[in-house]
C-alpha cells in the first residue's frame, strides 16, 4: 500500500476527495447510571456496581436520569443545536452478551438535540462541520475474552463485566462535512475541548469515555453525489483516528483505481497492525427493529428548562480563546493550546494571578509541565504541580534569583517532591549571587590569586578576562550572576 503523508494531495492528484462523517460516543460523568441508581465508575472490580435494573433482571424497569438529560442538552446547546420540545427513547434490538436486555435503550427519530455546527481550525483555515444530532443512550457492559488473542474469535469463553452497563452516553453525529484525517482530528479535538469545558465527561479515549466511529467514502472532486461508504470502528486515540482514516482512504482509492467497487461494510481498525479489516457486510448488518420503548414515557422539555440549561453554560473554548488573546496578549497558536481543555486554560489563568509574563507562563506550561505530565500519563487536571507554585518558580527566574537552566532542575524536583521553589533553592543553595558586595569579595579573591592572568589582561590580552570569570564562577559553585561578575571584574581591572 502506498505510504504517504499527504493523503489529500494524493487524492487530488487522482481527482478525488474524501467524505467523512464521525459518530462520537461520550460517557457522561453523572454520579449514577442512565436508567438506575448504580454508580458510574471505571476500573472497579467486575460486577460490583450493578443492580437488578442494569443487569436487566426480569421485571425491572428503567427510569431516566434527569442529570444525564441536562448534560446532553448542555452538549447540544454548546454545539449550537436545537433542543427538541418532545423527545423519546427507542429500543435498538440485537443480541449480544454485553447487553443484559439484548436491546439498547437509545434514541431514534426524536433525538434530544439536532442541527448544530462546530467551527474547526486546520492550518489556520476555519471550516464549519455540521452536527446532525446529539442523542442519549446507555452503554453496554464489557466482555473479557479468555483465550488466544483476547478477541472473540478463537476465545475459549468470555466473561462479562456489567459495571459499565447502563452508563449514560451522548452520541454526537456529524454530517459528512469532513474532508481529511487532519480535519477529523481537529474536529474531534475541538469537540473534546468543548466537552471538557462543559465538565460533562472526562473524555478519556484510552478508558473509552470518548469513542469515535467514522463513515468514510470517496467521490470525484466537487461531485454532489456520495460514494459507497464504509464504517470504521475501534479508533481509541487521536493517532488511531488519523491513521485509520488515512488507511481507509488509500484502501478505497486503490480499489477504485483497480476498477473494483468499494463494498458497503463495517470495518475494524486494528491498531496493532495498522489496518482496517472487514467486520460485517451490508447483508450481515443488523435490523435493529427500533420501536418506542413502552417502559419510558416521552419527555416533554419546557422552554424554561432549556433556558435554564442555556444559562448554566460555562465559557466555551471559542469565547475563552478570544478573551485570552485580548486579556493576556497570547498568540492565536498559544490560545488554541490553552483552550484544548478547561484545565489548560484554568491552569494558565491561575499562574497569571501571581505572575506577569504570559508568554513565559505559556512556554513553561507547554514545555516543562506538559512534558512531565505526558511522561506520567497524567491529564492537566491531575497535575501534581499547583499553578501558584509554578508562578512562584517563574517569579524567581524573572527577578534573577535563579537562572532558567536551574529553574528546570528545580521544576523537576518540585514536580517529584511537592516542595516549593524557595524551599528547594534554599536547601540546595541554588540562589544566584547578584549582590555587588558579595560578588566584589569573590572578584577580589580571584584577582589576588591570579596575578599572571591579571597582568596579561592589563597588557592587552582580552581573553584573560574569560579565564578570570570562569574562576569566579567556579569559586561561587556556579551561583554568581555571570553578567554582574563581568561588570564588576572590568571595573576592578
Amino acid at each position, binding site marked *: 500500500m502506498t505510504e504517504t503523508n499527504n493523503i489529500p494531495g494524493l487524492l487530488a492528484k487522482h481527482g478525488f476527495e474524501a467524505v467523512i462523517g464521525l459518530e462520537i460516543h461520550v460517557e457522561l460523568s453523572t454520579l449514577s447510571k442512565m436508567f438506575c441508581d448504580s454508580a458510574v465508575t471505571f476500573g472497579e472490580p467486575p460486577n460490583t456496581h450493578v443492580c437488578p435494573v442494569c443487569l436487566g433482571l*426480569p421485571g425491572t424497569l428503567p427510569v431516566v436520569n434527569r442529570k444525564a438529560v441536562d448534560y446532553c442538552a448542555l452538549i447540544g446547546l454548546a454545539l449550537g443545536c436545537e433542543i427538541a420540545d418532545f423527545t423519546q427513547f427507542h429500543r435498538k434490538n440485537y443480541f449480544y452478551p454485553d447487553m443484559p436486555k*439484548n436491546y439498547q435503550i437509545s434514541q431514534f427519530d426524536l433525538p434530544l438535540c439536532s442541527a448544530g455546527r462546530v467551527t474547526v481550525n486546520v492550518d489556520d483555515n476555519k471550516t464549519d462541520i455540521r452536527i446532525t444530532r446529539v442523542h442519549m443512550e446507555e452503554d453496554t457492559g464489557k466482555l473479557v475474552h479468555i483465550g488466544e488473542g483476547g478477541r472473540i474469535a478463537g476465545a475459549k469463553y468470555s466473561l462479562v463485566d456489567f459495571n459499565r452497563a447502563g452508563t449514560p452516553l451522548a452520541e454526537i453525529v456529524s454530517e459528512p462535512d469532513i474532508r481529511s484525517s487532519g480535519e477529523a482530528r481537529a474536529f474531534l479535538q475541538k469537540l473534546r475541548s468543548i466537552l471538557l469545558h462543559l465538565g460533562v465527561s472526562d473524555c478519556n479515549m484510552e478508558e473509552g469515555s470518548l469513542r469515535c466511529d467514522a463513515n468514510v467514502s470517496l467521490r470525484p472532486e466537487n461531485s454532489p453525489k456520495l460514494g459507497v461508504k464504509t464504517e470504521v470502528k475501534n479508533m481509541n486515540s487521536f493517532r488511531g483516528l488519523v491513521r485509520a482514516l488515512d488507511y481507509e482512504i488509500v484502501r478505497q482509492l486503490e480499489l477504485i483505481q483497480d476498477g473494483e467497487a468499494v463494498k458497503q461494510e463495517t470495518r475494524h481498525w486494528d491498531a496493532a497492525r495498522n489496518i482496517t479489516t472487514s467486520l460485517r457486510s451490508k447483508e450481515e448488518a443488523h435490523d435493529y427493529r427500533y420501536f418506542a420503548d413502552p417502559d419510558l414515557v416521552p419527555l416533554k422539555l419546557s422552554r424554561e428548562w432549556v433556558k435554564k440549561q442555556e444559562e448554566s453554560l460555562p465559557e466555551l473554548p471559542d469565547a475563552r480563546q478570544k478573551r485570552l488573546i485580548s486579556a493576556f496578549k497570547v498568540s492565536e497558536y498559544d490560545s488554541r493550546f490553552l483552550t484544548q481543555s478547561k484545565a489548560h486554560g484554568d491552569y494558565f489563568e491561575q499562574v497569571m494571578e501571581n505572575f506577569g509574563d504570559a508568554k513565559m507562563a505559556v512556554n513553561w506550561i507547554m514545555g516543562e509541565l506538559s512534558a512531565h505530565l505526558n511522561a506520567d500519563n497524567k491529564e492537566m487536571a491531575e497535575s501534581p504541580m499547583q499553578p501558584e507554585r509554578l508562578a512562584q518558580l517563574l517569579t524567581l527566574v524573572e527577578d534573577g534569583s535563579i537562572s532558567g537552566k536551574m529553574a528546570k532542575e528545580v521544576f523537576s524536583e518540585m514536580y517529584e517532591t511537592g516542595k516549593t521553589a524557595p524551599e528547594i533553592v534554599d536547601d540546595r543553595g541554588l540562589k544566584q549571587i547578584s549582590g555587588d558586595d558579595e560578588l566584589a569579595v569573590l572578584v577580589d579573591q580571584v584577582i589576588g590569586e591570579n596575578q599572571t592572568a591579571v597582568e596579561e589582561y592589563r597588557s592587552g590580552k582580552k581573553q584573560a578576562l574569560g579565564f578570570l570569570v570562569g574562576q569566579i564562577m567556579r569559586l561561587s559553585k556556579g551561583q554568581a550572576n555571570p553578567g554582574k561578575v563581568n561588570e564588576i571584574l572590568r571595573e576592578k581591572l
Partner: protein
Amino acid sequence: MDLYKLTIEQAAAKLKAKEITSVELTKSILDRIEKVDGQVKAFLFIDREGALAQAKEADKRLATEKDGPILLGVPVAVKDNICTKGVPTTCASKILNGFVPPYDATVIKALKGEGAVIVGKTNLDEFAMGSSTENSEKQVTGNPWDLKRVPGGSSGGSAASVAADEAIGAIGSDTGGSIRQPAAFCGVVGLKPTYGLVSRYGLVAFASSLDQIGPLTKNVTDAAIMLQAITGHDTSDSTSLEYQPPNYLDSLKKGIKGLKFGIPKELFGEGCQDEIRDSIQNMIKLIESLGGEVAETSLSTFEYALPAYYIIAPAEASSNLSRFDGVRYGHRAKDAEGMIDSYKKTRAEGFGSEVKRRIMLGTYALTAGYYDAYYGQAQKVRTLIIKDFTDAFEKFDLLISPTTPTTAFEIGAKTDDPLQMYLSDVCTIPSNLAGIPAISIPVGLAGGLPVGLQIMGKHFDESTILSAARALEKEVDFKITPELAG
C-alpha cells in the same frame, strides 16, 4: 368453621377482633391447598414456611397495632410472573428454571407492608401468553367448577386458587384480559386497573404498554381492599402516574342510581353464547330497576382491536423476552457450540410454542420494511380505539358487556386452534388498548358454569366501576360453590 372460606373483609374483622390469629387462618389455607391443589393444580410454588413466618409477624402486629391495615394477616396468592424476593419466579416457563429474584416487585412490597401473607405463586400461561393456562410449561390447572375445563388465562392459577378457597385473595396481571377472563371462567371478581395506576416494577413484562397488575377476589369489596393496597405512584416505574387514589371502600356505597350505562353492540357479536347473552340481558333489567339508565352504543373500531392487539403485544413481547438468553440466569442449553448456538439452543429449549409463535409474530411486525404496515398501523388503530372510548364516555359513565363470549371450555378444546383461543379475549382486549379500567363480576351460571359481566369505566374511575359492581353483586348474590372432592 372453615376459615379458608372467609372473604378478606370477614377475615380482617375476625383477626382484628382477635377471634382468630393469622397463623390459624394461614394454616387453614395451607391445609386447604394441600387437600385440593392436587386436583386444581393452581400453585407452582407453595411457601409454607415463609407464609407461616409472615403470619407470625402479622400476629405480632395485630397484637400491637390498633388500626392496622385491612390485609394484615390475610393469606393471598401471587401470579408467578411477579417477582418475589427469595422465592422462585418462573413465569411458568422452562427458561426461568432456577431463577430466584433478589428483589420484590413494588406490589409485593406493598402487600408485605400491609402485612398480607403470601402463601405461594400461582400457575399461568407461559409469560402470561394465553387464555386457558394450558400454555404453562409446568402443569395444567383445572377449573374448580369443573376440573375437566380450563380456568381461563393467563391468570388461571390465581383465579382458580380463589375459587377453590386456596387463597383469600390473589394478584394477577392483565394484558388483554388475563385477569378478567379467568375471573369470569372461575366465578370470581377480577379487576384490571387503569394503565399506570399500579406499578409494573417487578412484573415480568409481556407487553409493557398493556400489562397491568390487579386483584382477583371473592367479591367486589375485597377487590376494592386489594386495589387500595397496591395502588400508588412508584418512582421505579416511569409509566406509573402521579395520582392520589380515592378511598375505594367509601366509593362502594354510592350505588347505581343515576348512572348511565352504554352497551357497545359489537361486544355481543356472533360467537357469543345465547345463555351469556340472556344473563347480560337480565343484568340490564337489574340495572334499570336499580335506577340506572341503559342505552345501546357502538365502538366502531371494535373489529380492529383484536388484530391491532396481536401486532402490538407480540411486538413488545419479542423485545421484552430477548433478555432470556441463558447468559445470566435461568435455563442455559448444554452442549452449545459458541455464542450464537447457545442463544439458539437455549431459547429453542426454554420457550414453549405459543411464546415462540408470538416472538416470531412480533419480530416480523417490527422488521424494517414491514414496520409501517404492521406496528405503525396498529398504533394508529390504537389511537382510534382510545378516541372511540373517549367519545363513548362523553355519553356514558360506564360501558358493559359480557366478559367472555363463552363459558369455560374443556381442556384441550382450543389448543390446536390459536385463533379460536385468541377470540376468547375479544371483549376484554379493547380496554387494555385504551388503558381504561374494567372489572369482571360473576352474575350467574350457564350450564353450571359461571358467567362474567364486564364493566368498563373512564381512566382512573375505578370508584364508579366498583360502586356499580357492588350494587349489582348485592342483588345477584352469586355464591362460589364449586364442589371439590377432598
